């Protein structure tokens, strides 16, 4: 079965420094597939600079890889013919972080909804188009009467972001890449927006790549999770075991650092190692790792498959078999019980 979208051993580097002599590795030898027949919600979690937004931009074809390939239905994304390109634009949709920047302030918000209907000929008549749009808005919890005909500045950030979800829904894509879709909206609204995304997946079988720095929402929304640390996968697998019993020391640090709403003040219980510094030769987490061993400083650990549905890039687990290069998708696609739907 040809994957819908595939990253094959992709590396992306950016020039750095005043004269562009340095190199920043944003994503290193990364492989990932989106299987059209087994839609999943996959969270990509990492701190700023971990490569998560670069991953989104590569998948959307917004930047070309430095090496490796991005394939859409088996064809190079950057060499698609016109028909395949239209197909790609129809079936891979994006929701971005900033619900303010994606709108043209001079157009009514209707514009972002009517344009795809027209371009992809989703409706036969004006009234059918209108009905489609209204249905999509209702599906994400908006009242069409309060939204249509307004300008972006007349709506709240949460409303604008939900219109973007409605827009994605209108197209019935196979994949939605959502890059920090709720980091700029209030906590009380986050749940509503993420709930609508989850619902799109459950009702319409749309795969979702949820890119975030927020592990708690990732846990609530996703079936599986990829934890990125400095351009590479630190840990991957089903979201439940990864969050409840993280294996990679970085994932452990990340989860331990989340301030919890609890009367137990466990937050400051252990000191945290220093901030990251220059790129080491071996494991990128070696400088901060409480369990660091000599070989961590010289050799990059591969992903060890510690269970059918999870893997960690850490020598602590070297008794487990190493995953073949680029096979991280294997642990993400392992069969598992369907996650319960998050209530909206």
């Amino acid at each position: 079965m040809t994957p819908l979208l595939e990253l094959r051993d992709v590396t992306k580097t950016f020039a750095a420094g005043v004269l562009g002599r340095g190199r920043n590795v944003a994503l290193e030898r990364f492989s990932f597939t989106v299987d059209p027949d087994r839609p999943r919600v996959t969270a990509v979690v990492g701190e700023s600079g971990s490569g998560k937004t670069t991953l989104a931009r590569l998948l959307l074809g917004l930047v070309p890889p430095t090496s490796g390939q991005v394939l859409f239905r088996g064809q190079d994304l950057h060499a698609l013919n016109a028909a395949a390109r239209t197909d790609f634009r129809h079936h891979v949709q994006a929701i971005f972080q900033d619900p303010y920047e994606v709108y043209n302030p001079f157009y009514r918000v209707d514009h972002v909804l009517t344009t795809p209907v027209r371009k992809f000929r989703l409706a036969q008549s004006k009234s059918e188009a209108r009905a489609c749009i209204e249905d999509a808005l209702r599906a994400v919890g908006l009242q069409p009467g309060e939204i249509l005909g307004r300008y972006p500045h007349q709506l709240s950030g949460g409303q604008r972001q939900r219109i973007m979800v409605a827009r994605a829904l209108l197209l019935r894509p196979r994949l939605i890449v959502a890059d920090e879709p709720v980091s700029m909206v209030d906590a009380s609204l986050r749940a509503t927006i993420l709930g609508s995304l989850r619902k799109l997946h459950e009702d319409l079988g749309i795969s979702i790549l949820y890119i975030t720095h927020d592990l708690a929402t990732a846990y609530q929304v996703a079936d599986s999770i990829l934890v990125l640390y400095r351009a590479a996968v630190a840990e991957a697998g089903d979201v439940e075991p990864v969050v409840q019993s993280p294996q990679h020391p970085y994932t452990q640090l990340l989860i331990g650092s989340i301030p919890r709403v609890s009367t137990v003040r466990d937050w400051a219980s252990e000191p945290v190692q220093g901030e990251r510094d220059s790129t080491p030769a071996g494991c990128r987490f070696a400088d901060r790792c409480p369990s660091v061993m000599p070989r961590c400083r010289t050799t990059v650990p591969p992903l060890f498959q510690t269970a059918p549905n999870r893997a960690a890039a850490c020598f602590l687990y070297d008794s487990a078999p190493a995953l073949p290069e680029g096979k991280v998708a294997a642990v993400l696609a392992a069969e598992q019980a369907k996650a319960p739907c998050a209530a909206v």
Partner: protein
Amino acid sequence: MSHAAPVLRVDALRVAYAHEHGAVRAVDDVSFTLRPHERFGLAGESGSGKSTMALAILRMIKPPGRIEGGEVWLQDTPLSQLAPEAIRRLRLAGIAMVPQGSMNSLNPVVRIRDQIGDALADHGTKLPRRELAARVRDLLVDVGLPPETADKYPHELSGGMKQRACIAIAICLRPKVIIADEPTSALDVVVQRQVMETLGRVQAELGAAVILVGHDMGLMAQFVDRLGIMYAGRLVEVAPIRDIITAPRHPYTRLLIESLPSLEKKGGLRGIPGLAPLLRDLPPGCAFHPRCPNAEARCRTEKPAVRPIGPDATVACHFA
């Protein structure tokens, strides 16, 4: 502790912004006290008035905003009675602010050493070079930065380091109150934890009180002693943090806590229905009634008064 004289007392403070449709009240009759060494949290959604509150305490509200009434007392000093020059001296020395965007608060073309030196000099502490260098060094070490940071420009520092540099500036005159307005909202969780630990440690060493402004209830739960919840410009509930988490009295507080995604169990994604009201178009009665699951007829017409519900706690709800 509850008998100690308050270090800061906010009394019936009101702040309004002039708007084409009349004044918009961003802080509406807010009162609370801050004890020495206390960590007090101010939480609420965007637009709830929490940042305006922080600026009003420092009397930094600019037109079209205006402090309409009420008083802020720093120990025995009523701040509204001070001349502009006296207020300027009191900022940093008496009440210091750790700003939200440390990225934009430091001067990009001045070395960290000189930014700290300027702050000291501006408040009348002119030190010989040697002493200044020693003072800067001590401050940087206090906030967990290497002493070499003094020679650096802000762009050479990471987000966490910049925020620490801001904390160093905030504590350089040993203020009695530190106001931290979402000090870690732009940082990753690991760095956030380090910066908050630093803030907590220097606060304890100085014996200062802290007002932490933010919307992250997890951060509040882990850091503050007492929490105030703001909604539509009013302080709708104040209580010791443990009581607020285990038994919130105001329905808004309860929904706010419930809306946080849990790391313990799945299926906990629940939003607060409806939208935060626009301050220029507040519903009559209790401003929360259109979103409140417990609202009754009375809530639609009668604004609930703030009433005490314990030695350290108040609530503004007819039924709490």
